[in-house]
């Protein structure tokens, strides 16, 4: 893969890296025919972000192996955020000095080579070690969401700025007549010492406001802030797709040159944390958002070689970079089924499981052996069907 980014776009690319660094510690690089996808997920699997830069964004873009003799398989890789972020740390310096930025990944070596061709005849070359890894993708059918909003640029950013920096979660509440954001605190904490902040908006403030089902969703603010910093700097309207509590919320923007989205898990309706913990769950994230339904995020092969959910949105914003319809292959569903543990919790708690697993290559028959441990393994089959009608056997 080789791409060249012209000066002023290098800053946009750097901003995307900054936004992704607010989500996770690793960055997945996925060159595809549709463009270069940058993705990250947080350790609790409660936040996933994806930036796809179309070929138009680049001065030059070739995603196949550069040498004809090499296999036509593109290299997908994972980089440590702490290796990549320093290169784009000072955006003003990039804006001032960088004339061209070249990124190349060679299948034959372990390096991602990022070169900055700067003013005054200075060239900065960074060779970063990467780990070859299948691409990361969240399964989220935004077109199935009952509630869709489109906020003008800056509206959401102007709202979240009112919450203190240490505020971990916020609650978004939407009815057909009203939209509000307020801070969220775990019940049981001292009510006296807290400061409550709530902001309401009339639907007319939005470019598009469609709320079918009243809903109140609570999600982590930190990852959203990073995303909103990016969108504000480009003055793009932000689309919000959401459902009821427990189902993920997706914030996305679209432009001729790129698409960006962040999918956040939301807290489940049951307030008691005990009933939320399913049997056998390994929960090791420190963030409170671990109580939220973990996102269904999985790694997948590229270009239709193995099954993957197609995620498109009828509203036009999309999470999937792949336009090709790809029906899920039987082994995918089988693998998913294997990792779903049996429901032993009381039927009254509304819990929706979303799984994280990596799909191995299609040559590997024993898919189970390749799967990492499931982080949240409780499912309600009915809920799954409702959520993802394309995979009824799940």
């Amino acid at each position, binding site marked *: 893969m080789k791409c060249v980014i012209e000066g002023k776009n290098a800053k946009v690319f750097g901003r995307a890296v900054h936004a992704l660094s607010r989500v996770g510690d690793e960055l997945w690089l996925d060159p595809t025919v549709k463009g270069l996808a940058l993705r990250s997920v947080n350790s609790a699997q409660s936040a996933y972000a994806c930036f796809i830069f179309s070929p138009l964004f680049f001065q030059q873009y070739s995603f196949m192996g550069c040498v004809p003799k090499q296999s036509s398989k593109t290299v997908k890789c994972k980089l440590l955020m702490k290796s990549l972020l320093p290169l784009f740390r000072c955006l003003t310096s990039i804006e001032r000095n960088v004339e061209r930025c070249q990124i190349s990944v060679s299948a034959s070596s372990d390096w991602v080579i990022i070169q900055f061709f700067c003013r005054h005849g200075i*060239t*900065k070359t960074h060779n970063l070690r990467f780990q070859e890894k299948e691409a990361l993708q969240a399964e989220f059918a935004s077109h199935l969401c009952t509630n869709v909003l489109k906020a003008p640029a800056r509206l959401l950013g102007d709202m979240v700025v009112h919450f203190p920096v240490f505020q971990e979660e916020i609650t978004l509440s939407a009815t057909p007549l009203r939209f509000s954001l307020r801070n969220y605190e775990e019940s049981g904490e001292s009510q006296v010492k807290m400061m409550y902040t709530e902001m309401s908006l009339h639907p007319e403030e939005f470019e598009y406001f469609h709320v079918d089902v009243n809903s109140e969703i609570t999600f982590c603010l930190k990852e959203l802030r990073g995303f909103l910093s990016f969108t504000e700097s480009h003055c793009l309207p932000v689309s919000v797709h959401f459902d009821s509590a427990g189902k993920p919320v997706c914030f996305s923007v679209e432009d001729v040159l790129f698409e960006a989205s962040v999918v956040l898990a939301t807290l489940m309706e049951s307030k008691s944390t005990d009933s939320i913990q399913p049997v056998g769950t390994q929960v090791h994230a420190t963030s409170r958002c671990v109580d939220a339904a973990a996102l269904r995020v999985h790694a997948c092969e590229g270009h239709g070689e193995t099954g993957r959910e197609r995620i498109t949105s009828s509203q036009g914003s999309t999470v999937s970079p792949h336009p090709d319809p790809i029906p899920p292959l039987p082994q995918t569903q089988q693998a998913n089924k294997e990792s779903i543990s049996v429901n032993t919790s009381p039927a009254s708690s509304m819990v929706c499981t979303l799984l994280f697993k990596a799909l191995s290559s299609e040559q590997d028959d024993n898919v189970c052996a390749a799967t990492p441990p499931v982080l949240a393994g409780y499912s309600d089959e009915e809920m799954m069907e409702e959520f993802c009608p394309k995979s009824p056997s799940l």
Partner: protein
Amino acid sequence: MPLSTQSQDDEEHYVLVASLDNARNLSNILKAITFKDHAVFTATPNGLKVTVEDSKCLQANAFIQTEIFQEFTLKEDLVTFQINLTVLLDCLNIFGGNAVAGTSTALRMCYKGYGYPLTLFLEEGGVVTVCKINTQEPEEPMDFEFCSTNVTNKVILQSESLKEAFSELDMTSDVLQITMSPSQPYFRLSTFGNSGNAHYDYSKDSDMMELFQCTMTQTNRYKMSLLKPSTKALALSCKVSVRTDNRGLLSQQYLVRNDDGQICFLEFYCCPDEEVEEE
């Protein structure tokens, strides 16, 4: 003026008297070489030289020429002593380190000779402070025998470009590798850190490159910990000259303009890292 009310006796006994209307013209320069506690002061008719060394591998020299001082009286050809540099800087900044517009600390530095303390008379806004700092037997500064005839490669760069590079350097790298060559990559700084390696290349045609005289391709590695002290000097300077000799010894010279626009020099010598692996 309070500083001149000393007894005439003392005046005759001082072997060194140096005065500055603005003590920052001395303290700012000295801050750039305070990586060790002790420094050797050497006064000659040319001016004042302050030397700091570290583990026999690194030497820094600050040169403040006679012309910088409002008064510079030397009764002997060479006056030298060792002193605690941290204490000296604390005294020079005794009226507060921050520069207040319109005010400056005046300094009169006096030394009676071997065995005597260094006496500082500092005045600001009519308040006078007298400091006496003990001096020690000066250690002979290392002579790296770096002479112009042995210089193989030399470049002079505008500091601005190097400042940025040094601020971005991967600090997880133990060494900084400097490559100088008459052919590509001309002048290259390389690091080898935990996540990978990085190279900063300066073309010989760069408009940041004021002078480019490289005769042979040389690659040398220097411990990052030994180069870190020079970043303070880089921050103060407007130009830097980088030279290596046939042994790979690195000489960096920094041109610094003080508050009054006068020129002072800072010089660093650094030994190459012995375990050089050819790439």
